């Protein structure tokens, strides 16, 4: 081998990218990892917010994988650039708003740009032919290489023997015979390889790595776009969709009602960005108001918040309404009966 090749691995935090990196690392290639933060990544946010979940240890799986491999990890904020992937996916959405194939192309293209700027030789992914219904079908794999502009500088070590030879194989940087030929949806080959390497505490797939594959989440995202008259969002918007009950009584406003103390604390951090309602007369949640509520809407919102408070059976409850500028006023309202709130309001 005439040079010490360098590879960049896309690290999601799951088992496949861990194994793919290890397979190449074991062949003497210098490997570093990259992880892209889109804002939709399922990375313990609910866990970080909700107090009841904090007893369980939390970790960032991408960092854990890099730590296991002893490699550097570069975490890249792509929140703004990623919006075009969400808004206009060339290859469409999956079951919900998940643009999986376009997402893969985006990430491989970003990785390609990264290696070209830093003199690395090729990119590694943990893709397995036929494992995912949209982005990992066999005919989709050449599309990723073509559209990302990476061609044969993309190596998929877990499935390489099912795919055409790549640059690192031709150059002798990696030995094709030491790569794998996994295919299909079974996880058994990966689990066996993990056992061989002694990896035990790896992340278990549970509903995917992205909130855009979550039906409940995408209902709220679609509602957000509809209410704003177009497909747009900021990071705060998509974070807030992960928190609390979202209730839309009318097109011009919605409430985000905290469900427990951790969410109250988290939503409190947004009181300079959204008007808020807080229970005064009884224990109860904090709620943010998103949109342009009228005075009558604020009263209706107060009745809804009262319905989730300890005063739900009282004839009247008192709340404090605060504007984003910090001006405060009091409201006394009758809590809404549970049966009076149309089910369609709860997103």
């Amino acid at each position, binding site marked *: 081998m005439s040079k010490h090749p360098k590879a960049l691995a896309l690290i999601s935090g799951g088992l496949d990218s861990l194994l793919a990196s290890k397979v190449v690392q074991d062949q003497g290639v210098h490997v570093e990892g990259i*992880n892209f*933060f889109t804002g939709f*990544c399922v*990375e*313990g*946010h609910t*866990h*970080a*917010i909700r107090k009841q979940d*904090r007893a369980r*240890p*939390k*970790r*960032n799986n*991408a*960092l*854990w994988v*890099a*730590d296991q491999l*002893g*490699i*550097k*990890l*570069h*975490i*890249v*904020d792509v929140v703004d650039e990623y919006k075009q992937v969400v808004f206009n996916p060339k290859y469409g959405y999956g079951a919900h708003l998940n643009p999986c194939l376009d997402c893969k192309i985006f990430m491989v293209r970003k990785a390609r740009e990264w290696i070209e700027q830093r003199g690395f030789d090729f990119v590694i992914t943990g893709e397995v032919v036929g494992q995912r219904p949209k982005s990992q079908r066999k005919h989709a794999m050449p599309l990723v290489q073509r559209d990302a502009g990476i061609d044969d500088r993309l190596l998929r070590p877990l499935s390489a023997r099912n795919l055409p030879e790549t640059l690192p194989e031709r150059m002798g940087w990696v030995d094709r015979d030491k790569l794998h030929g996994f295919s299909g949806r079974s996880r058994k080959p990966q689990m066996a390889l993990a056992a061989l390497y002694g990896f035990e505490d790896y992340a278990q797939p549970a509903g995917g790595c992205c909130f855009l594959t979550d039906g409940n989440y995408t209902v709220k995202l679609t509602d957000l776009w509809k209410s704003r008259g177009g497909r747009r969002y900021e990071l705060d918007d998509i*974070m807030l969709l992960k928190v609390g009950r979202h209730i839309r009584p009318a097109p011009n406003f919605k409430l985000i009602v905290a469900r427990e103390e951790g969410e109250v*604390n988290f939503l409190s*951090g*947004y009181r300079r960005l959204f008007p808020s309602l807080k229970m005064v007369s009884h224990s109860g949640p904090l709620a943010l108001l998103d949109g342009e509520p009228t005075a009558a809407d604020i009263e209706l919102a107060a009745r809804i918040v009262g319905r989730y408070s300890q005063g739900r059976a009282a004839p009247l409850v008192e709340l404090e309404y605060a504007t984003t500028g910090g001006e405060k006023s009091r409201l006394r309202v009758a809590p809404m009966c549970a049966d009076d709130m149309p089910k369609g309001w709860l997103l």
Partner: protein
Amino acid sequence: MTTHHRTIDCLRLLCPMPVIRVQEHVETMAAGDTLTAVCSDPGVLHDIPAWSRINGHQVVATETRDGEYLVTVRVGPGEV
């Protein structure tokens, strides 16, 4: 050798955003400089030390006060 210290506000940011902010600042700092991230997500107590360890930096102090988590990183020597 003169070293410098920075403090950055990561309040309200959820992981990995505080890690990304630390990373962005560290890239512009010199070996031996220190950076304190003031955070509200307790996940930083795991994530910033893990990021520092694998990237050759060192966490020299962590502090929890009034629901805020302060993590101080000393910038490592750079490319090995």
